[in-house]
């Protein structure tokens, strides 16, 4: 069952992009849209959007880079580990939970390292990979998405994003403990 689901979804993800492009363009052509001209008209925006993101992304990534390189993560892990021990979250996976919202490549590195040390099918290995799949790089998403429309006052986006991350990490601990603990 799980295997069938996996094969199905994998197949869909492989054909999705070509199919969507084909469907949209032929549909447009059938509706007598001047497909080439309209496509180019829309595509023009691509450059300006990408360039608009740059200052926001630089600001965010530099701050995250400084934080990561300073060794502050180790300090934070030491401070928070008594709390996470209470809910049965191994201290080894705490850097993973803290890094996930900040940096995609950083959390990927931590996940790889944890699997190398503890084995991919150990409790810690499964938990780390579940954590990786349970959330997105919140601060990167915030910087890129808000940056693209020049939004500087993000209102409640940061607390909402952090609440989502914490919920995802706690749920990951819960479900992995339930099934593999």
């Amino acid at each position, binding site marked *: 069952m*799980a295997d069938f689901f996996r094969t199905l979804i994998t197949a869909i993800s492989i054909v999705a992009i070509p199919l969507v492009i084909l469907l949209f363009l032929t549909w447009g052509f059938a509706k007598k849209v001047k497909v080439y001209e309209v496509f180019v008209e829309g595509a023009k925006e691509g450059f300006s959007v990408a360039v608009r993101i*740059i200052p926001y992304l630089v600001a965010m990534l530099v701050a995250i880079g400084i934080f990561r390189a*300073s060794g502050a993560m180790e300090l934070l892990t030491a401070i928070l580990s008594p709390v996470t021990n209470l809910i049965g979250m191994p201290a080894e996976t705490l850097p993973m939970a803290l890094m996930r919202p900040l940096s995609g490549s950083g959390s990927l590195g931590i996940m790889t390292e944890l699997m190398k040390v503890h084995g991919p099918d150990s409790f810690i290995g499964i938990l780390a990979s579940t954590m990786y799949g349970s959330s997105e790089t919140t601060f990167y998403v915030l910087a890129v998405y808000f940056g693209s429309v020049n*939004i500087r006052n993000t209102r409640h986006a940061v*607390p*909402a994003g952090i609440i989502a991350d914490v919920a995802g990490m706690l749920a990951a601990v819960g479900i992995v403990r339930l099934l593999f603990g």
Partner: protein
Amino acid sequence: MLNYVWISLIMIGILVAAGNDVKDEVQNPYRNGMPMQATFVVHKGPSALRQAWEGELVISSEAFNGFYGIRTESTEVRQPVVVSTSAAGESSLLMQMKETSPTRWKEMAKSATTKDQLMGLIRSMQFSDDKRSAAITLALEPIRFTKFKAITQAALEYAATAVNIALGLIGIMALWLGVMKVAEEAGLVRVLTKLLTPVTKAIFPDVPAQHPAVGAMIMNIAANMLGLSNAATPLGLKAMEELNKLNPKVGTATNAMVTFLAINTGGLILIPATAIAVRAAAGSANPGIIIGTSIVGASCATIAGILAARLLQRLPAYKRALEVKNG
């Protein structure tokens, strides 16, 4: 809020780096200026052209661990090294860091004068009778302010990474914005939007059901769930652009934007392909075992994100931020 998070990341980073460097200064974990004993095994002697020996530094694991006060080395240290003598009779050594080099040296080499190389002075060198090896006393170059060097490097590197990421987006952005424009003109997005109106109406009450933003958001979420991040980001940015057209106050996030971002940061994905790939590479017996657990985790994250966004938007401070002042 982002202001506080941003300045905290930078301030905590720099302060912690300073603290770590001061600690290093006091504890001297790199043993700056302290003489170290080692055996130098000669592989290639000096030639007429060059007064240099090539070979290996050999230090027993006990001696190495004892010198640095650590427990990381379990096998004998064998580090390739070049020893050269200047005209003034001073000898120095140069070690290129390799995969097999001791962890502590690799760490030190990261903040050495030349990256991934450690230099040192030779205080004394006593060759054995057959000239194949020598007992030497050496002092490595002092390693200081490692964290400050690291954060400087990180700041510069990440600034460049940010630009690379943004520039890398140009092509895919153009492709998807073009395709979406065609779909819009053909009325296809409207068809898609209509199908999901009951759902979108409940999650985004502020957005008119037929608005192009809804179509872009649906496509973005679908692409995210399928793990098509190349398509998801351009579609998401398209959705932000459309949502911004409904924004009464330029430069401030609307409720719909925050809810949309909460869904995106939840990161619901049906097949976490990256995690599975890493598990397979690490030799897992069942790499796909995390599909179910990841869906549970990400669903919780997404639901919590939507609820948090919808609840927090009622707080007076956040409401006020969106009010447009008259006059």
